[in-house]
């Protein structure tokens, strides 16, 4: 048995009983990385020496006993969007190519205090803008299930690393699907919590009204444990909400009986991969056998969500990314005067997709277009939110596919930004409405690529979607399959 293949929950049991040490687990993970990283390129930065030192500290704490944090001694991966004190943090951008943060973000600090071991920083689309991780300025990450496919994005490095056992679990961020869509593409569990549930302090901002931090794990139990560790009020994030954090794992009893689950017709549409539709419908039947009640619901403004998102997210991004001016940190180009320094630093520092979104957002906010685009999008955002409010009067959770297709080929969509944007057609609405949503593996297509089912919950009701996800997981074997890291 190789330690890196185990789940967080399983390892916690072994570490607590002192059957294995954190150093052994961490070394097993690094051996796995050495054996596979040439094929996958999941990581931007590896922290081997630091990780071993952290593992030794964890072993000392474990030796003293009495502590019960499930993360103590567990090797985790962090998306390169999380500020990590003293460890390079690039956001997969040239403009932050040498940036070493002076402090840890809140989620990272909480993981460290819990005694987790940071393996390294994972690859992503530059500034989290993308659905394939191909927009990274550092490397292309390959899908462990079929190496000519993308891992999804933007948290594609984290998803590939979890799927290929290059870490025990990972942290990602999700602005329009960036945890859930790569989780679906790589056959793992990914949860975007309610907006305000996890502090955004110390994550590099993309779209501040949409960004959320969340776990990416091998199964639902691990997901619940990770969420509990990072959730909670933080005075350093003015949008974090002061609500108690439940013991999420305590809701995982395998029973979903009596829960009312809404199935929205707008998420089963022509053009989606038939195998995805079949797999999700079959998953719903499995849950029906477990005793859930199906309700037909309608979310009529679903078809507008992508359009709303690409105004709001780009408008917020254009404002957030104005800080990269080459003055206090980040890349500075040589130029004759101040304006040219700004312009050249940004021209040379940002990649094509980031520039495209800054342009779109600046346009939508500029004089003469603000009402027609930005204000219009904010009004339609209200309609999207109201759709969910109406649906949740009839049901406790909503089930949909996570993505319209399985992982697409590397290079397939890079020339057509709009086609790439439509990969997030099923995940964006939860961000616009601020709702929690989880993706769990629910099958494979004919080519052996994983399919994800999305469960969306009410505000701050992560417990119900975790409970449903766990009941489904208990009834199926999908989460136990491992990728072979070949060309399929």
């Amino acid at each position, binding site marked *: 048995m190789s330690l890196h293949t185990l789940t967080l929950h399983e390892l916690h049991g072994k570490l607590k009983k002192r059957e294995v040490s954190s150093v052994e687990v961490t070394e097993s993970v690094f051996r796995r990385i050495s054996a596979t990283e040439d094929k996958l390129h999941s990581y931007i930065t590896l922290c081997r020496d630091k990780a071993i030192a952290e593992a030794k500290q964890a072993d000392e704490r474990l030796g003293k006993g009495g502590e019960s944090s499930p993360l103590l001694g567990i090797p985790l991966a962090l998306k390169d969007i999380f500020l990590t004190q003293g460890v390079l943090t690039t956001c997969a951008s040239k403009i932050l190519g040498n*940036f*070493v943060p*002076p*402090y840890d973000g809140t989620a990272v600090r909480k993981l460290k205090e819990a005694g987790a071991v940071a393996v390294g920083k994972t690859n992503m689309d530059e500034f989290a803008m993308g659905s394939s991780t191909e927009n990274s300025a550092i490397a292309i990450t390959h899908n462990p299930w079929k190496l000519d496919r993308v891992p999804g994005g933007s948290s594609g490095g984290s998803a590939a690393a979890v799927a290929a056992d290059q870490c025990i679990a990972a942290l990602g961020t999700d602005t329009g699907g960036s945890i859930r869509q790569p989780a679906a593409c790589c056959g793992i569990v990914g949860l975007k919590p309610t*907006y*305000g549930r996890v502090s955004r302090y110390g994550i590099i901002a993309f779209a*501040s*009204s949409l960004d959320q931090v969340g776990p990416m794990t091998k199964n639902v139990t691990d997901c619940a444990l990770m969420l509990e560790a990072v959730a909670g009020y933080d*005075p350093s994030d*003015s*949008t974090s*909400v002061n609500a108690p954090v439940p013991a999420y794992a305590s809701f995982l009893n395998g029973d979903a009986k009596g829960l009312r689950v809404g199935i929205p017709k707008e998420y089963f549409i022509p053009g989606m991969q038939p195998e995805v539709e079949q797999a999700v419908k079959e998953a719903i039947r499995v849950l029906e056998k477990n005793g859930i009640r199906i309700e037909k619901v309608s979310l009529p403004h679903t*078809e*507008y969500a*992508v*359009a*709303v998102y*690409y*105004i709001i997210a780009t408008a917020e991004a*254009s404002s957030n990314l104005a800080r990269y*001016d*080459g*003055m*206090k*940190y*980040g*890349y*500075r180009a040589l*130029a004759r*005067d*101040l*304006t040219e*320094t700004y312009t050249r630093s*940004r*021209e040379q520092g*940002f990649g094509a997709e980031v*520039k*495209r979104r*800054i*342009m*779109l957002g*600046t*346009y939508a906010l*500029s004089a003469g277009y603000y009402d*027609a*685009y930005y204000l*219009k*999008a*904010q*009004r*339609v*955002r*209200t*309609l999207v*939110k109201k759709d969910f409010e109406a649906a949740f009067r009839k049901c406790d959770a909503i089930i949909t596919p996570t993505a319209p297709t399985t992982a697409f080929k590397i290079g397939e969509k890079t020339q057509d*930004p*709009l086609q790439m*944007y439509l990969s997030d057609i099923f995940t964006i609405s939860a961000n616009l*409405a*601020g709702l929690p949503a989880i993706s769990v593996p629910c099958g494979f297509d004919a080519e052996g690529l994983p399919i994800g089912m999305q469960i969306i919950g009410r505000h701050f009701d992560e417990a119900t979607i975790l409970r449903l996800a766990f009941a489904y997981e208990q009834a199926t074997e999908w989460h136990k399959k491992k990728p072979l890291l070949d060309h399929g």
Partner: protein
Amino acid sequence: MKITRDEVQRVALLARLQFSPQEEEILTGQLDRILQYIEKLNQLDTANVEPLAHVADIVNAFREDRVVNQPSPDTLLANAPARERDFFKVPKIIE
């Protein structure tokens, strides 16, 4: 509405970005297709719908105005592209 190359140049100036003529042409076409897609929002009558900026119920989150951390100048200047003593060195701002 169709976005023109003149507008792309105007927006690039606002965003402190610049593009080669070839990039500008590709970008104009791409932005135009994206904006055409976004036009679908105009199918909806939103005259009586309030805009939504974000979903949290919080209006303002106030705190005491006091220093909670005080990193050293060296810490703060560690990522500076250019430094002189304890200052960020920047290009001349006033001619």
